[in-house]
């Protein structure tokens, strides 16, 4: 991410400025929604909060890259100056914030809004419902299990559009011959884009049940098995189809390669669709999407974003925090936000008929519980997650590392995870 440091510095200085002048109902929200599509989405939240009739003000602190934003939040909490609210991913990233008593209990808001009934699937709600108390607001369901491709690129190379990853690997040499980049990826932020691809390939190779068993039982046996070796081998093959500018590229620049027809295909979560939409493209003629890396076996994951609220010793701020919490999950805001973001709303009782063909695919898939994959973050801590990031990024960058080595290291990390 080329502008990451500059952006982070700017965001940090902006945050300091606001911290001094915050009034009772000014609520600072730290998040990492910084790309074009994401900004369009988050402005829907800000607009709704600013116009809620209470004179509240959304103070926006956008910090590029999730790991940077999260560590900023953690430092602020440790330093005794937490923001009003912050974005996290559902999972174990914030478990110590709950056990440390740093978060605002939202149970009364949740009871009034009947969150336990409107939020579907149940797995999304359970990320916030810990020991009978609600500690966060889920705002969307993201699925990581997508591949996005440029229709003009496949046409130019004279190959059919892919239906699964094997199709794509078969077509890739032709795309390369046509002078285009077959596979677009980026290596910023410890290589999280590569790990996202890797996780999708793991689920595809192991199947949902075996994958869940590997993570929940910390099974080094499955993690070191032949399927995993196959994944690493396939990952090396995919690397042959990338360009050498990948090293520091961030995800939306990667998506842009597909948008502008320079690259064939990118594996990325559904937030990439927000970028296509922001570029004025529709999923009918300009770009195609492949669900779950295999159209025959559609899967959606229950990743997403949640918003946590930090305890503040000021009843006015607390009231504003609770108003925002209720607002984030209200039907109108859910539709506006998720249409711009490219994610699914967390409630099933809203009208999504305006959604594009790709979202219709995922809305259909989410109806069947058999298609739902639990987010990896639910099983592993951020520590383990980053270790996996590093392993996969190292394997991807270093051609001398064999698939056998990588599989063995993967098994060690899974076996030792806490």
């Amino acid at each position, binding site marked *: 991410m080329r502008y990451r440091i500059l952006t982070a510095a700017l965001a940090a200085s902006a945050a300091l400025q606001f911290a001094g002048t915050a009034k009772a109902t000014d609520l600072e929200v730290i998040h990492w929604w910084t790309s074009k599509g994401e900004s369009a989405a988050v402005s829907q939240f800000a607009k709704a909060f600013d116009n809620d009739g209470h004179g509240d003000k959304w103070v926006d602190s956008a910090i590029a890259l999730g790991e940077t934003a999260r*560590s900023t939040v953690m430092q602020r909490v440790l330093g005794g100056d937490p923001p009003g609210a912050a974005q996290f991913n559902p999972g174990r990233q914030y478990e*110590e914030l709950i056990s440390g008593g740093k978060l605002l209990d939202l149970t009364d808001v949740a009871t009034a809004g009947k969150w336990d009934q409107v939020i579907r699937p149940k797995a999304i709600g359970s990320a916030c419902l810990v020991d009978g108390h609600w500690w966060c607001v889920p705002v969307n369901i993201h699925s990581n299990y997508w591949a996005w491709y440029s229709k003009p690129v496949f046409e130019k190379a004279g190959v059919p559009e892919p239906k699964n990853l094997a199709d794509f690997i078969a077509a890739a040499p032709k795309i390369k011959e046509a002078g285009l980049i077959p596979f677009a990826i980026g290596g910023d932020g410890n*290589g999280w884009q590569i790990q996202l691809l890797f996780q999708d390939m793991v689920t595809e190779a192991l199947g949902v049940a075996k994958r869940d068993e590997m993570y929940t039982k910390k099974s080094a046996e499955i993690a070191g098995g032949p399927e995993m070796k196959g994944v690493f081998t396939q990952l090396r093959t995919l690397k042959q189809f990338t360009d050498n500018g990948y090293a520091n590229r961030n995800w939306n620049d990667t998506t842009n390669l597909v948008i502008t027809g320079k690259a064939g295909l990118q594996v990325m979560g559904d937030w990439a669709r927000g970028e296509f939409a922001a570029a004025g493209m529709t999923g009918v003629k300009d770009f195609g999407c492949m669900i779950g890396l295999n159209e025959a076996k559609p899967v959606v994951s229950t990743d997403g974003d949640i918003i946590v609220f930090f305890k503040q010793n000021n009843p006015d701020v607390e009231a504003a925090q609770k108003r925002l919490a209720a607002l984030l999950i209200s039907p109108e805001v859910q539709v506006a936000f998720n249409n711009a973001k490219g994610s699914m709303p967390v409630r099933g009782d809203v009208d999504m008929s305006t959604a594009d063909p790709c979202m219709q695919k995922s809305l259909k898939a989410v109806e069947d519980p058999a298609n739902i994959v639990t987010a990896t973050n639910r099983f592993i801590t*951020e*520590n383990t997650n*980053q*270790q996996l990031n*590093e392993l996969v990024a190292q394997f*991807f*960058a270093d051609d001398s590392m064999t698939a056998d080595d990588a599989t063995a290291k993967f098994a060690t990390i899974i076996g030792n995870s806490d």
Partner: protein
Amino acid sequence: MQRSWRRRFHLPAVIGTIPMILVAVGVFVIGIGFSVLWSFTSSKLFPNYDFVGLAQYRRLWADSRWLVSVNNIWFFGLMSITCNMVFGYLLAVFMDQRIRQEDLFRSIFLYPFAMSLIVTGLVWQWVLDPNLGLQEAMRNLGWSSFSFAPLVDANTAIYALVVAGIWQGSGVTMAILLAGLRGVDEEIWKAARVDGIPTWRTHVSIVAPMMKGAFATAFVLQCVGVVRVYDLVIAMTGGGPGIATSMPAVYVIQLITVRQNVGQGMAAATMMLLPVLVVLAFGGLVMWRRNRQREAAL
């Protein structure tokens, strides 16, 4: 005995250094103490006092990223310090030839040191990015097979860091050594010339040994810069590709902030402290022996 005590603890000097002593004890000693303490605990996001012995150190030395970081800092340190000292000395000799526009040249050479390493790193990253910088520019000029992208190859990225380190550090080494060179008495040069000793020989055998102090200062500055190298790596490579350019300081910050594993981060920080302590102890020993010899001579 009485005299020697007075000479060592001159009252105004003691009063003058009290603020510095307080800061040093308050910030460094207590801070380092807690770092070491927490390295023996299972602290994750929040520091705690659940002592687990050497478990964090065992995990640390089993982590391939830490091993890569340690190798990297040795490589980076040896390469950049050696090159900086050699280039710095050559530049200082060049500047000492009573050239015209000396001030201008000195500013140019010192300029990289005045710039933030974040800016330096970003500029280098842009120049070396295959899609934006040198490679793309040459290809646009028509040399379509031109290939130069050291930052994206795990084997060469560390060399790019070394080059940036030299670019940044040789100017300040030059300034320090130039001051040392100017401190050498003109008479020595004259005497050497009269004796018909070649210039290079005068430099190596006479002038350089006389500049021991300047060399030591430059060397210590370089070492400190290497141990804490962080911003350059973050700005240029982010520790990548993969983990190829990770450094201990980057590792520590990553463990504490992103990986939410304070205990292991503190263990890594303690490991970074060890070589510094060894060097300090060695320096102290040398000083102590010299003082004892001098006192014995008196």
